[in-house]
């Protein structure tokens, strides 16, 4: 790491720069009153950028940091919503803007303005306003860089007006795009296939004779720079900000496209040890074992990435949902783990959540006493899941008009294919894909609960129906022995068909019913295995369940064994969680496995963990999150946070500083199963 990178890193880690920021508190209600819906958003963006001052650190080559903590705000007359959290959780089309430069984009907007009919005028004018405002900011940075930052001054003479001439200029352009989109209040925007769309610039530099290590320095400065303002990004918890890259994976011709720039990204990330950008690795049947080894070395660092996704399952699944192959093959991963299409997708992959344990529990309370055998109970559960799918789809179609997808965002639309071409904002469903994703939370808890009922109530008849329901209502108060018997039943994660078959049936009902149903934006619904924060939030409202889980306790995070399940170990877990045809339930949501950090202590252990990941991919698992974890260290960090200012952990689809997480999230991480080796 060069001294320059080291300096930037220490500025970041001291966090002093955060105290220099200002609060503008700009109420622009009076000024936007007469504006149409496109111009309101564009105007706020313009005002936001006009108040930004150039922030440049010593030796800085990248630039674009937040000066103001807050957005100018106005209240939307339609629904009283105070602006500030816009659409996101997608991968913008950086590639197109990079390759054109904003001067050319501006020309294209003006050309459309001249040739399209008047219904498009307002949008196109608003769009022009945003691009002009963004360019003005870049010009101010250039002025500020003139005195002491010659390289940045030079770069800004070219980008963002014109296409980059080097990898360095492309990185400056990228940072400018990321910064301006975040200033437009767009959230959870991912960086996407950086190793693909940046490759031409990287390759051209190498061909010109630029040294690889110089390009690594630039990349590292870029990576450090995207970490500066993450505390201002909106998310459920700090760290939940969507700044992830996706490396490797098939190209348009179906060949694995992991390249030297992908490798450079891995090297930079391992050297820097920072939360952002988070790394997703796309792997497939062509992936060499060496990449699993490299990924496992990264896992060893304990940052909670890479997260793996299996091209051979995901692409197939997306095609089945109706995505064109050339789009599916280009998939990226959204802020957490949802599979999305860069550039042309405006899906909302995390819109609704099937709360599996609640549906099963409600059905037990309503129907168990009337059922004579398990098949009758199952029929009731299946009905309840279909009914809940209907209710959730209805909810999505109703709430969409109040959601971020209904909030105009001309500047964001610039980065979504189809919008400029059609002269439409993305909120007018101008994008190619406008699908809604439905998470499936607590699948393991729900399957475990049904397996326990099947065994104890119907097969062994060792627990009476009323007895079970009473125990659940009493949250097992005074029924500890009954709870132990429930805990002793088959649990998902042990490669036991008695319960795995139930999980398969749950996923089959859910996905076959929901997948492909139309939504109100011309798209469809898609089912997944994720939980996002619902493993805590939804679970905190659900009483005791028949898997032995006590009232309000969390579910497993995403697609993983429940916290109360005793599992044999990772090999059984891999098999339990790959029995279903995962192409049918491809909204996203990983199997998470925690491995004790001592396993990684030498090359031998690392190689075996890498083999484990490879096994999962061979078993046609869709997505894997594997973490190196040391429970004792986490417990100590809870007691002595001052000793661990930079301890980073994986939370659900993202990593965060342990100290900055709320207590329930910290506790969940500590409780997750550890496979000591």
């Amino acid at each position, binding site marked *: 790491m060069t001294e320059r990178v080291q300096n930037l890193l220490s500025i970041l880690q001291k966090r002093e720069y955060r105290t220099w920021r200002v609060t503008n508190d700009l109420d622009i209600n009076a000024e936007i009153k007469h504006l149409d819906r496109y111009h309101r958003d564009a105007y706020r963006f313009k005002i936001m950028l006009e108040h930004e001052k150039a922030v440049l650190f010593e030796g800085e080559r990248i630039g674009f940091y937040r000066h103001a903590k807050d957005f100018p705000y106005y209240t939307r007359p339609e629904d009283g919503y105070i602006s500030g959290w816009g659409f996101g959780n997608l991968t913008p089309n950086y590639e197109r803007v990079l390759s054109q430069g904003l001067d050319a984009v501006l020309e294209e907007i003006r050309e459309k303005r001249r040739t399209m009919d008047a219904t498009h005028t307002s949008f196109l004018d608003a769009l022009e306003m945003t691009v002009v405002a963004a360019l003005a900011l870049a010009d101010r940075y250039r002025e500020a860089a003139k005195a002491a930052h010659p390289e940045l001054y030079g770069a800004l003479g070219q980008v963002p007006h014109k296409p980059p001439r080097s990898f360095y200029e492309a990185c400056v352009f990228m940072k400018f795009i990321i910064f301006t989109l975040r200033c437009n209040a767009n959230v959870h925007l991912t960086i996407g296939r950086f190793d693909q769309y940046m490759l031409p610039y990287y390759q051209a530099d190498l061909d010109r004779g630029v040294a690889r290590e110089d390009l690594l320095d630039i990349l590292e400065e870029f990576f450090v720079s995207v970490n500066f303002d993450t505390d201002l990004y909106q998310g459920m918890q700090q760290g939940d900000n969507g700044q992830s890259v996706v490396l490797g994976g098939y190209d348009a011709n179906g060949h694995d496209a992991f390249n030297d720039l992908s490798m450079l990204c891995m090297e930079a990330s391992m050297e820097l040890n920072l939360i952002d950008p988070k790394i997703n690795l796309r792997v497939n049947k062509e992936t060499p074992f060496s990449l699993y080894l490299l990924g496992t070395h990264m896992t060893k660092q304990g940052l909670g990435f890479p997260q793996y996704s299996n091209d051979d399952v995901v692409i197939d699944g997306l095609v089945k949902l109706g995505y064109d192959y050339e789009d599916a093959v280009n998939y990226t991963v959204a802020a957490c783990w949802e599979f999305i299409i860069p550039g042309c997708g405006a899906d909302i992959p995390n819109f609704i959540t099937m709360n599996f344990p609640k549906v099963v529990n409600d059905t037990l309370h309503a129907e168990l006493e009337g059922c004579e055998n398990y098949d009758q109970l199952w029929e009731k559960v299946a009905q309840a899941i279909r009914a809940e799918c209907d209710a959730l789809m209805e909810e999505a179609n109703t709430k969409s008009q109040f959601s971020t997808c209904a909030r105009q965002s001309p500047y964001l639309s610039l980065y979504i294919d189809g919008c400029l071409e059609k002269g439409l904002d993305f909120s007018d469903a101008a994008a190619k894909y406008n699908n809604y994703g439905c998470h499936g939370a607590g699948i393991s808890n729900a399957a475990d609960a049904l397996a326990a009922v099947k065994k104890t109530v119907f097969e062994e008849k060792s627990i009476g129906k009323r007895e079970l329901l009473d125990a659940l209502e009493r949250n097992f108060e005074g029924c*500890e022995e009954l709870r132990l018997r429930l805990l002793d039943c088959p649990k998902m994660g042990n490669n036991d068909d008695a319960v795995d078959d139930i999980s398969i049936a749950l996923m089959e009902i859910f996905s076959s019913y929901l997948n492909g149903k139309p939504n109100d934006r011309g798209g469809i619904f898609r089912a997944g295995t994720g939980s996002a924060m619902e493993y805590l939030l939804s679970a905190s409202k659900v009483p005791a369940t028949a898997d032995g889980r006590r009232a309000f306790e969390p579910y497993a995070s995403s697609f993983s064994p429940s916290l109360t399940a005793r599992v*044999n*170990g*990772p*090999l059984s877990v*891999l098999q339990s969680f790959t029995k279903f045809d995962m192409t049918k339930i491809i909204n996203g949501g990983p199997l998470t496995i925690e491995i004790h950090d001592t396993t990684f202590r030498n090359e*031998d252990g690392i190689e*075996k*963990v890498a083999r*484990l990941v490879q096994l999962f991919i061979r078993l046609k698992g869709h997505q894997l999150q594997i973490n190196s974890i040391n429970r004792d260290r986490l417990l100590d960090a809870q007691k002595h946070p001052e000793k661990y200012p930079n301890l980073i952990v994986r939370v659900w689809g993202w990593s965060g500083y342990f100290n900055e997480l709320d207590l329930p999230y910290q506790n969940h991480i500590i409780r997750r199963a550890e496979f000591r080796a």
Partner: protein
Amino acid sequence: MENGIVFSIEEFATFDGPGIRSTVFLKGCPLRCMWCHNPEGQEFDAQYVRNPNGCLHCGRCLSSGTGELTQESVGACPRGLVRLCGETYTPRALTERLLKNASLLQAAGGGVTFSGGEPLSQPVFLKRCLDLMEGKLHRALQTSGYCEPTLFREILSRLDYVLFDLKLIDEAAHLHYTGVSNRWILENFTLLAKSRIPFVVRVPLIPGVTDTAENLTSIASLLRENGVSYAELLPYNKMAGGKYAMVGRDYTPTFDEHQAPASRPELFAAYGIDIKIL
């Protein structure tokens, strides 16, 4: 007695032989190594154990009045800290359980390792399991080498790999620190070295006990005599005493736990032996 008592099965064992392995820990050991980190593996019978972490000291586990943990204690503990350690398996049941992972273990270049306790102390069960697994799983044994040599020969013929411990070469010292003589162990080591079974020698480095220049020289010399050119060293881990409270015992080693164990690579090098420190 054909059935065996198992105190743990670790599915993803990464340090017990080649590839990803499932390690079966057989209960019971004739040795009493002062540094043993698996005290629950020493007794041959199943026993109730109580995890001290989180204990409320409410006494409910002892409500039977005998002062001992019983089956009732398991349900009585409000935190679920009491469990029965030691599960009886028929050879067929254990084999079936392990075979469920056979294709994964094979794909990852691994197999099954029998450890303990001392697996050679349940010879009938062990032989039967190894026979049932023949041709289906790569079979390894992790052993102190302590058993009657005729028996060792019989077991050896059923194995694909051996992890063999060498602790102390001096017989009196061996007797003092492990409770048994090392004569069988040394004889069995020679048998192993002459066999065609691939194996690795492991030496625990116990400060002031096994890590002395004299002992390690003797080990290195024995290895060279037997044509062995590689050994793995396991430095003493201060966590070794961690599980004694669980079985209701005190951990009282007479050596200095806090002294860093010496690995003496130069000494092994002088005998032409490559070492790896685990």
